[in-house]
């Protein structure tokens, strides 16, 4: 059974059908790319998958469970975590705490335990710190644990978003242009990290990116979106050679 199964997904904004009859099926552990021209509806699909927008039509199944129309919170609990195209960190909190917020639903003690500082508080906090540091290490952010997230340079902020999403222990990770604003070296590093996350955590990953080096380098399969509709779908290298994709998206 596929990890993510989307059938006939659509949404309408006024007169604009931003996503129209979108289908995709992603297997567990796959690294999947979503590409397409600007304004094609890629981010909108992420918003639909995570419950930020409610679809006008269509069904979304995560690991067999129907999550269509559920709230963002429920969907995260069901196992989807994401990053944002325009970064959304908890800017006034330290890097470490950003990740610990991600751990919120998995390492738990009651509010009263927290206020009264019962032994469980110390135990769980210790677990959380260890876990968070472990994740930060993956992204090479462990030295910045105490820095306020808002003071990180752009590239590190992107990485921290991924770390935070990962902390919610998702089944499926959605990354929206993770390499935007990074130079080729940094992008290369990021590719390694993403691959590591996929292997090490057995993560299923769906990512949006305009950097073809990244897409070509790490995605096994891609879907190309154009005007809200699927233009092409399949094995990455093949799709990237598809003449329709070249004219609509890649150029030259």
């Amino acid at each position: 059974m596929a990890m993510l199964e989307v059938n006939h997904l659509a949404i309408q904004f006024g007169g604009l059908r931003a996503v129209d009859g979108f289908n995709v099926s992603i297997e567990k552990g796959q690294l999947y790319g979503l590409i397409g021209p600007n304004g094609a509806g890629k981010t909108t699909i992420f918003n639909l998958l995570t419950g930020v927008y409610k679809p006008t039509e269509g069904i979304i199944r995560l690991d067999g469970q129907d999550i269509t129309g559920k709230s963002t919170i429920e969907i995260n609990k069901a196992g989807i975590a994401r990053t944002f195209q325009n970064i959304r960190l908890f800017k006034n909190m330290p890097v470490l705490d950003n990740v610990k917020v991600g751990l919120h639903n998995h390492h738990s003690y009651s509010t009263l335990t927290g206020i009264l500082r019962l032994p469980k508080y110390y135990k769980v906090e210790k677990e959380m710190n260890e876990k968070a540091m472990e994740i930060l290490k993956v992204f090479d952010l462990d030295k910045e644990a105490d820095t306020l997230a808002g003071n990180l340079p752009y590239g590190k902020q992107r990485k921290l978003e991924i770390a935070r999403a990962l902390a919610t222990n998702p089944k499926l990770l959605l990354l929206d242009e993770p390499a935007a604003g990074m130079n080729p070296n940094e992008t290369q590093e990021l590719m390694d990290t993403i691959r590591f996350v996929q292997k090490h955590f057995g993560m299923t990953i769906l990512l949006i990116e305009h950097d073809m080096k990244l897409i070509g380098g790490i995605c096994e399969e891609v879907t190309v979106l154009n005007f809200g509709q699927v233009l092409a779908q399949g094995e990455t290298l093949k799709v990237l050679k598809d003449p329709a994709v070249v004219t609509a998206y890649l150029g030259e």
Partner: protein
Amino acid sequence: MSFLSYLKDGISLGSIYAIIALGYTMVYGIAKMLNFAHGDVIMVGAYVILTAVTRGGMSPVLAVALSVIFCTVLGMVIEKVAYSPLRKASSNLAVLITAIGVSYLLQNLALLIFGADAKSFVTVIDVPSVSLFDGQLVIKGITIVTILSCIVIMAGLMLFVQKTKPGRAMQAVSEDRDAAQLMGVNVNATISMTFAIGSGLAAIAGLLLCQTYPTLTPYTGAMPGIKAFVAAVFGGIGSIPGAMVGGILLGVIEIFGKAYISSQVADAICFAVLIVVLLVKPTGLFGKNIQEKV
């Protein structure tokens, strides 16, 4: 008939709130700050008129002009000294608190200069009442003047903001100051102009307030200021027609609450209606309900 009469009273009271709310919302919309001192500028404006007429022996028209000029300058000075240093402060609550300080300052200055005693306001605008239905419904001249002023000011402000270049600059500043600066907008001048306009309107509001309810103390502006703030939010804060409609509705609700429920709990009723409206329409009646793009 008593319904109509109450409605008339409501509109009359509401038009006062509306005219104050227009100045309030103007400043809020552009400078993105709740100017708690707005009500007190109204009070200052009223004292200027009263003093000019009774002590200076000025003609009413001259006195009003003087008051508008005085308040305009006062507004600009307050902005420059107390608000503009905080424009880039890390929280916009900082300037809110400073505004409260300015409010205390104006009240206590007035107290020292004019004394605590309530003064009756002189008649500056003398317009005859209109009598309808064989005199069963009398609409006071000042009410008509207030409503007309409201409409004129509202229309003027809307035209100004939407159609003129400084107006567009104001809109841009309200959205993103740095970006506006990159377009060549003089942000300081624009915000200063906003305060000038808002405070000039406060002088007119002070005149109309004290004409309708002819009493003046150093605290005269405080409560109408708060009510106008409520009215502006009610209508959708930052929205110019919203301020007008919100003000008038607030007046009508207050009067109807007193008339049909209880005059003891009229304030509670008024606020309760406000809450209900905001729960149904969380950005006020005319507020744009903008969904944040994710």
